[in-house]
């Protein structure tokens, strides 16, 4: 375990800041998909490296929490390790890589494979909170568009994509409609993860430190990817591929280039290990067992 640093408050930021962030989180939960501006603090981790998610985590975390941090699905990625070291050093909380044991999971670019419960919070790091930024650079204009539900521009963008490319070009960060009201950027999760935001049991919190916005998808909220009747939303295609470590065919795979071939492995390293030990481990909570 990392040694605690001296001379700093529990979880680094001062208590007034934590209280403000928790209040903004409550506002975000009350208005699903709405981006709540907040007084984002600078942290010893660089802007753009997860400071929005981190401020949410630091504001919520208590001594009894069990924390998991992943980056691209991996617990051991350098940035995940770096953030873990920082939180360990300023809080001393337990860290786990087991998705089901964590009370708070902070993540960059992935939702863990295993279904999360209603006693867990998933905190997503967000680089661009504004889903309309691809069609409108000005903040004052995008705020107006959200207020008036004036979403024509992004629908036209998607339509023109299909006309030009016969496909929508957005890879990750696929825009979603939340509770039939706000179009939201789900953070750069793959499209594979998008359906898992819909009617989930878990609270999803999104933090953008540099852009100073917090937003949320509360449990059991409808989240729909933008799609047309004759051009449906489509997730990444891993047909015919399987993880070379655990043989899973129902997980998001990383493509790895080796000298003579391509190899695929699970992006969720913790789940991959579980599957490796027991191929019958389920991704979803078996309600019949409960």
């Amino acid at each position: 375990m990392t040694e605690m640093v001296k001379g700093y408050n529990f979880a680094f930021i001062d208590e007034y800041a934590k209280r403000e962030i928790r209040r903004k989180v409550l506002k975000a939960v009350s208005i699903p998909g709405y981006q709540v501006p907040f007084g984002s603090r600078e942290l010893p981790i660089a802007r753009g490296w997860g400071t929005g998610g981190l401020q949410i985590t630091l504001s919520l975390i208590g001594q009894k929490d069990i924390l998991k941090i992943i980056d691209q699905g991996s617990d051991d990625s350098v940035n995940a390790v770096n953030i873990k070291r920082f939180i360990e050093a300023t809080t001393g909380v337990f860290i786990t890589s087991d998705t089901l044991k964590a009370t708070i999971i902070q993540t960059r670019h992935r939702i863990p494979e295993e279904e999360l419960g209603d006693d867990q919070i998933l905190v997503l790091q967000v680089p661009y909170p504004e889903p309309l930024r691809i069609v409108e650079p000005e903040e004052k204009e995008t705020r107006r568009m959200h207020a008036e539900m004036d979403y024509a521009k992004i629908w036209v963008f998607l339509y023109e994509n299909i006309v030009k490319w016969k496909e929508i070009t957005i890879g990750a960060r696929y825009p979603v409609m939340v509770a039939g009201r706000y179009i939201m950027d789900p953070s750069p999760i793959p499209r594979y993860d998008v359906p898992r935001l819909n009617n989930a049991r878990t609270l999803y919190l999104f933090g953008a430190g540099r852009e100073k916005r917090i937003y949320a998808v509360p449990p059991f909220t409808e989240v729909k990817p933008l799609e047309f009747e004759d051009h449906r939303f489509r997730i990444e295609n891993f047909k015919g591929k399987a993880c070379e470590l655990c043989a899973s065919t129902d997980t998001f795979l990383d493509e790895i280039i080796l000298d003579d071939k391509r190899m695929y492995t699970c992006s969720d390293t913790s789940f991959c290990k579980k599957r490796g030990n027991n191929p019958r481990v389920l991704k979803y909570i078996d309600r019949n067992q409960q």
Partner: protein
Amino acid sequence: MGYVAAKGGREAILNAEELVDYFRLKGESLPLSVKAIKEQFRLACDKVMSEGALYAPELAALALKQAEGDTIEASFLLRAYRSTLPRISYSEPVDTEEMSVVRRISSAFKDIPGGQILGPTRDYIQRLLRFDLLEEKEKKMTTYIEEGKLEQKVPKVINLLREEGLLPQPAVSHIRNKTPETFALDTECQRLSNGVKSEEEPYDITRYALVFPLPRSGVLQAMARGEEGGMMAIAYSSMRGYGDTHPTLAELRVGHVFLKIKHPITGKTVKVGEVLVTEAEVIAGKPTQAGEEVPQFTLGYSLVFGHNERKAICMAMLDITMKAQETKHPAEDQEFVICHIDSIESGGFTAHWKLPHYVTFQSDLDRLRKIQKEKGFKLEADTLRKK
């Protein structure tokens, strides 16, 4: 060493941390003292305090030492440290006419009340490398120190112009304890009255996210901690051709001002410290007219921590360009300027591209492969490799 994939991320990071210190010290010169950095890299410390938004000369010097002279990294260290400090109080407004001036010049008039005071400036020194500094002697140092300080109080040039009605009077609005909501109202009032107003309480950009249009106090705060190079690039674009700013420097002054706060118990104003600041007041050459009122010049204002004249001039110029009625050029667009001058934000985000992005890239790959297929291209990896 693993960048991501397997175990070992932690070990690699710890080793990288050790290597940073090794690279700093491997030349075997004596470790730099923080005092020497604070005193002899005075301008670098000032830049770091300004961009780090924390007036703490000793910590700025420490940050520079730790960052091996990288001012953006050092500002970041200071800015992060700042987040651990609770906000206790807002200071009282500073009257810069009471500044102990180290240097003050005006390019608007040949002579000014109080006189032109060059102070420590390199403006008229030929930029020849001084090889004598390769081996500097202590004796010379003591001679300089004996020459003493150059500090005095002098009247301000713009007050003369105000008295003559060439510049608008500063006005004051009456909404206290500003939140984004009351500010929005206030900004609307300012826009309608077409005037430049100051506010009694600042819009605190460290406590509220930026909203646009941003009240003037917010604009000035954001610029006061903006990065010199970034601000200069945008201000320069306006001087050079993407805009039409040909300003006159009414006054540039560098000096010490007292920091005062209201005593929490007695309510009396008390001095709690002294800070070195640079202030620029720039006048746009073209007259503007608000409604039927008398045509007047527009004033651009800046105040920055430490001695940093380039930044102060650019900030005052951007203060003018952002007052443009119509936004035709980048420097005139408040949102454009304010969102892109903070080096902690832009630097952090620039660096974040070094983080692994293989999940998002997989999504992009999937799209491109599908599009190639849809459009009838069959570029299988194997056929490509054979070529």
